[in-house]
């Protein structure tokens, strides 16, 4: 059975298209690299940027190795003598953590609400969709900003804020798909067989509405990473003790115009690459999984 599944996957047109699509493969490769960094980075970084004992203010603002000659700090240091590369590795970790977790939570909550709204209909549907519509008329960034301002900085608060912003897209999409599926015969058949509603929703309908969610989710990770970076840049995202790439950028911004360029540029490029990775993969998935473009 497993053999069959694997064969079906690797022999499919989708996988074939993936192998021939250099951009998609690049995107996947980038993401994989960043995931590896997130998991294993801290083991190999030259310095632990959170360990205050390792920091020496005499090392502050050293330029990258090809200018300073100091091979301890490959990409230079920030104002507290922290190795930028190490800081960036930890920053990647945090960015990925926030991005992925917030996406997963939004997806789960949004899907559940969307299924219920689409399947049950009636006032439940109205209420959920009303809330969704109202929320959608406001830019997510502003809502997240507001929440973070009110409740303070923190990674967990950030994830909650992003989830509160992000569930709507999934809910709407799933609701639409559920409405379409609800009228199909297999749902009638399941009802006739006496399955309770929640079984029908999750075991029968859900697998059929998953496809667009994969696309949305992939791209959402990138969006959340950007939003987190923006919020951190403004000072309302992650706390100072756990710098994400956005916070590193904020720190670098203050000294950018005095010629200390590396503190901003490297985190920026890293951020850019991460999001490019998710978008490349998301693009490919969207084109592959969209039946209307066939």
């Amino acid at each position, binding site marked *: 059975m497993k053999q069959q599944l694997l064969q079906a996957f690797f022999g499919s047109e989708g996988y074939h298209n993936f192998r021939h699509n250099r951009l998609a493969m690049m995107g996947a490769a980038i993401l994989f690299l960043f995931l590896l960094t997130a998991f294993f980075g801290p083991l190999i970084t030259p310095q632990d940027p959170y360990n205050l004992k390792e920091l020496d203010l005499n090392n502050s603002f050293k330029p990258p190795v090809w200018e300073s000659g100091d091979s301890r700090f490959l990409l230079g240091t920030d104002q507290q003598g922290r190795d930028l590369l190490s800081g960036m590795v930890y920053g990647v970790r945090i960015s990925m953590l926030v991005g992925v977790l917030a996406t997963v939570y939004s997806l789960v909550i949004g899907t559940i609400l969307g299924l219920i709204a689409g399947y049950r209909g009636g006032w439940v549907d109205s209420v959920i969709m009303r809330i969704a519509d109202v929320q959608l008329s406001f*830019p997510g960034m502003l809502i997240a900003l507001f929440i973070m301002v009110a409740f303070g900085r923190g990674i967990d608060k950030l994830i909650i804020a992003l989830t509160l912003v992000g569930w709507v897209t999934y809910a709407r999409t799933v609701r639409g798909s559920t409405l379409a599926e609800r009228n199909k015969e297999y749902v009638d058949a399941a009802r006739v067989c006496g399955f309770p509603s929640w079984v029908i929703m999750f075991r029968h309908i859900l697998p059929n509405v998953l496809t667009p969610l994969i696309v949305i989710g992939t791209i959402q990770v990138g969006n959340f990473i950007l939003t987190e*970076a923006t919020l951190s840049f403004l*000072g309302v995202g992650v706390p100072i003790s756990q710098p994400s790439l*956005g916070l590193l950028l904020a720190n670098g911004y203050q000294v950018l115009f005095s010629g200390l360029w590396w503190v901003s540029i490297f985190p*920026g490029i890293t951020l850019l690459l991460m*999001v*490019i990775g998710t978008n490349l993969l998301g693009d490919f998935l969207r084109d592959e999984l969209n039946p209307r473009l066939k």
Partner: protein
Amino acid sequence: MLQYTLTRLGQMVIVLLVVSVIVFGVMNLTGDPVLLLVPPEATDAEIAVAREQLGLNLPLWEQYQIFISNAIHGNMGVSYMFKRPALDLILERMPATLEMTIFAMIMAGVIAIPLGVYAGAYPDKMMSKVIMSASLLGISLPSFWLGIMLILVFAVELNIMPSSGRGEVTSFWGINLSILTVDGLQHITMPALTLAVGQMAMLIRLTRAGIMEVMRQDYIKFAKAKGMSAQRVLFGHALKNALIPVITVFGLQFGQMIAFATITETIFAWPGMGKLLIDSIYRVDRPVIVAYLMLVAMLFVVINFLVDVIYTLIDPRIEVK
């Protein structure tokens, strides 16, 4: 149509009320505003007096009522920092924000839509692939980083653009505009560009997808069967059908742009209401934050309504219930 408008207006009021409750509630449940208003060495007695004077010892429900009735009369509180009505502060700065945002929107629309149409109509050409790569970059860039880079390159290194501030303004029907002067244009270009790039990228992709989907419709094939050339089919049929949803989304993006303007204004020291918001956040100037959120909420709700109305007017299939 009248009934539709009235229903929507009613809904808008409800939405604003809900937003006001949320904003008020969250803002007042976190932290004690009194401590910000009294000097640090105030005694407890003085603090109690201040609390009473500000009406902060009343139950929350009553405070909310006062808040709402004040708001309806145009009084959104007094800024802790400036000691002036919060609403005035925001309204003073609104033209600057709107000017930049609208300028950015026009920039985005004028550049992105033709590029998107081209990429959608001729997806296999090299130019289309270049356009799509550029748009990928555009949506992956953190906008604040783009702003920073622009300043670094054009203002600091090359020294051909001003790095911050708003340029010379001239008064136009009572509103101060900077785009009518050369200096003003110089100052507005980079902030507007920073704001526009993300939108441009999104718009290119949206337009391209719209065109590609429309081109697969039966009525397009039917048009070809009638003897229309590919170009005529594109401009005569595909364009209108594809652009209507695109323009709608773009209109709704205006709200997003106002949100992102907060960052752009901060980086470029553009004197708009976004910068005011960020500054107020740092200084915990609650009345201004609340006033901004309420005003912006009203703006979004009105924009959404207008866009919906325009959509029903353009698309003949939609009949207003």
